């Protein structure tokens, strides 16, 4: 069994920091890689060693396989953790890591490759007896094939999906036969552009399902456990925003059934390490295999908090070849956990990314609150990368208490300089359908427009506060001028502006 002594984390932001925290606690050294704009990012400061791997554009840095392997060799790392995103589900990368004689902290390349193809994974699951959404077994070459398939499934609506898909790209819902041809061509075009692969297939469109996923962990000794579920139905444009564990709608029997199917799915593809089997869960309690994510998920903390486990630690142990240190019956789930993704987006302006420098930051804290953050005060939110700035996780004995705790924590969150999804999350948490636990993936589409307007403060109060602030600043401006002989604008020079000036000079 090979002991991992030094891990290169081929990622950035909060997930890099998350992984390094566990490594540090396990006495494992960490190597950060960073692009030229990320030198000041907190994931660099968190590491034991750091190497610059190229320009801001991910293709030339965080996706640069030769460069990353070169750093691993120079640093003497014996394992690579890919995090999520970037190269995490790139079979070629996993293969290259193994070929370089290093441990890849994830499943084997063949599994990644198999699960990366929607059609191939569907076929594998169908053969293994895992329930999948009714539809084509293979890719469809022509519109006629698609039409025949739709008829065979019992009609419309149907969904056309890219075989290589992800993130909602190359996907079209077709509600009427006459729309099929146009949607088929559009999906193929988009798939070709997004994934370099025009292959599409067709399946039954499930109306307003829940997105429920099962966390699994597997070792190299044929042990596979399911670590309960996560309900990730609060999504906007196929991006999860709020996740929770457990789901309010699963009975213990359904959980056990889905868990068993997830384990079956993992076995069917020879799965090792942490992974997630995603299901659509319809209003009648049927569930269908959607896809398998062959990596750690963004939302893994809700599982950790409820089960009292450290998934990154389990990943490292499994990668070293240890048998899992627990059995299915050892799990002791407790209470309820929620996660809100704090994205740098302007929710009142169609969720456009909000880039810029964070000028003030204070995370919430106290009982039942966990923060996994990728930023600090003075961090630059860059347009080059994912807009997720931090994850806020709350735990409590019951779901209602976890929700109230989340509201409390969201209100405590202080962040200046960028706009975030905090007001969006606050609005969702108070919606009766969210409270009921019965919401589906349609929630945001259905309710956000009406939620947007709610909860505005009293007009008199706002005006009194604004007047008091203006008065205070008028007085303070006068004081500043009088006592430190500052030009008025000078009072505005904050340490980060200073720093920017200093660094500007330094970089010359």
């Amino acid at each position: 069994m090979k002991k991992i002594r030094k891990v290169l984390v081929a990622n950035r932001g909060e997930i890099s920091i998350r992984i390094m925290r566990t490594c540090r606690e396990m006495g494992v050294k960490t190597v950060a890689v960073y692009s030229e704009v990320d030198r000041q990012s907190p994931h660099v400061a968190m590491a034991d060693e750091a190497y610059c791997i190229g320009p801001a554009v991910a293709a030339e840095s965080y996706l640069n396989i030769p460069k990353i392997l070169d750093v691993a060799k120079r640093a003497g790392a014996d394992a690579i953790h890919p995090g999520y995103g970037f190269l995490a589900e790139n079979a070629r990368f996993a293969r290259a890591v193994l070929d370089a004689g290093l441990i890849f902290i994830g499943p084997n390349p063949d599994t990644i490759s198999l699960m990366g193809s929607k059609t191939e994974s569907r076929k594998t699951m169908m053969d293994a007896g895992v329930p999948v959404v009714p539809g084509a077994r293979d890719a469809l070459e022509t519109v006629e094939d698609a039409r025949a398939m739709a008829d065979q499934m019992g009609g419309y609506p149907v969904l056309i999906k890219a075989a290589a898909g992800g993130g909602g790209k190359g996907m079209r819902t077709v509600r009427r036969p006459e729309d099929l041809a146009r949607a088929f061509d559009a999906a193929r075009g988009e798939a070709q552009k997004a994934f370099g692969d025009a292959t599409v297939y067709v399946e039954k469109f499930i109306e307003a399902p829940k997105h429920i996923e099962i966390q699994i962990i597997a070792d190299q000794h044929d042990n596979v456990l399911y670590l309960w579920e996560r309900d990730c139905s609060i999504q906007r444009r196929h991006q999860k925003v709020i996740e929770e564990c457990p789901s309010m709608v699963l009975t213990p029997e359904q959980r056990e059934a889905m868990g068993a199917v997830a384990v079956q799915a993992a076995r069917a593809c020879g799965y090792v390490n942490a992974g997630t089997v995603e299901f659509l869960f319809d209003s009648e309690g049927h569930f269908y295999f959607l896809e398998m994510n062959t990596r750690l998920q963004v939302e893994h903390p809700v599982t950790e908090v409820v089960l009292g486990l450290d998934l990154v630690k389990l990943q490292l142990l499994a990668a070293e070849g240890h048998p899992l240190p627990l059995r299915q019956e050892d799990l002791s789930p407790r209470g309820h956990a929620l996660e809100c993704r704090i994205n740098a987006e302007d929710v009142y302006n169609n969720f456009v990314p909000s880039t810029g420098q964070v000028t003030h930051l204070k995370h919430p804290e106290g009982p039942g609150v966990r923060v996994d953050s990728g930023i600090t005060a003075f961090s630059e939110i860059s347009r080059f990368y994912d807009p997720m700035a931090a994850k806020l996780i709350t735990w409590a004995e019951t779901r209602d208490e976890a929700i109230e705790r989340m509201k409390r924590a969201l209100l405590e969150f202080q962040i200046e300089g960028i706009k975030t999804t905090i007001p969006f999350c606050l609005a969702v948490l108070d919606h009766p359908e969210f409270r009921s636990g019965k919401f589906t993936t349609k929630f945001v589409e259905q309710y956000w427009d009406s939620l947007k307007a709610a909860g505005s403060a009293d007009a008199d109060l706002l005006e009194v506060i604004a007047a008091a602030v203006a008065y205070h600043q008028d007085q303070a401006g006068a004081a500043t001028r009088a006592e430190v002989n500052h030009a008025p604008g000078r009072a505005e020079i904050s340490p980060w502006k200073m720093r920017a000036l200093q660094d500007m000079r330094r970089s010359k």
Partner: protein
Amino acid sequence: MKYFLKRADDFAEVDIVAENGQLAIHKDGRNYQVDLVSLGNNRYSLVIDHQVYSVEAVNDSRTVRLVLNQREYQVTVLNQRQKVAQDLFGDSDADDLQGDVSAPMPGMVLKIEVAPGQQVEQGQPLLIIEAMKMENEIRSPISGTVTEILVKPNQAVEKDDTMIRIE
């Protein structure tokens, strides 16, 4: 000391008197006892008639941008000097720029969905910008006619670059 406020379509006038380190604010026949302290950066703690409020506030010349309970508000606040100046020289805010569609963040123009001369409705998609690996639809702030398109597909834009003009 008098201050003149405007929020959305509301106008108001307040009178502020400092006494014992607190502010007595008179507005619409009501008195507010306000204790405001700065907490550093742009944060303020206010105790108004013993009710506690924490706000982030930035006073950008005459516009106070407030964040209260994670919601953002804007209030135009003029002191007497500024009010006099405005009454004399007119409100420069009235130079209406809202028909200029500018980039909300740096990014790359992916697709333009309107053409010069075209009628557009408020909220209608105008173009798509890619930033942070996401496609972002930019919608029209007003109903009107597209008079000018200043960008092309695959062109990089900086924050606040004007991209489309609508009248």
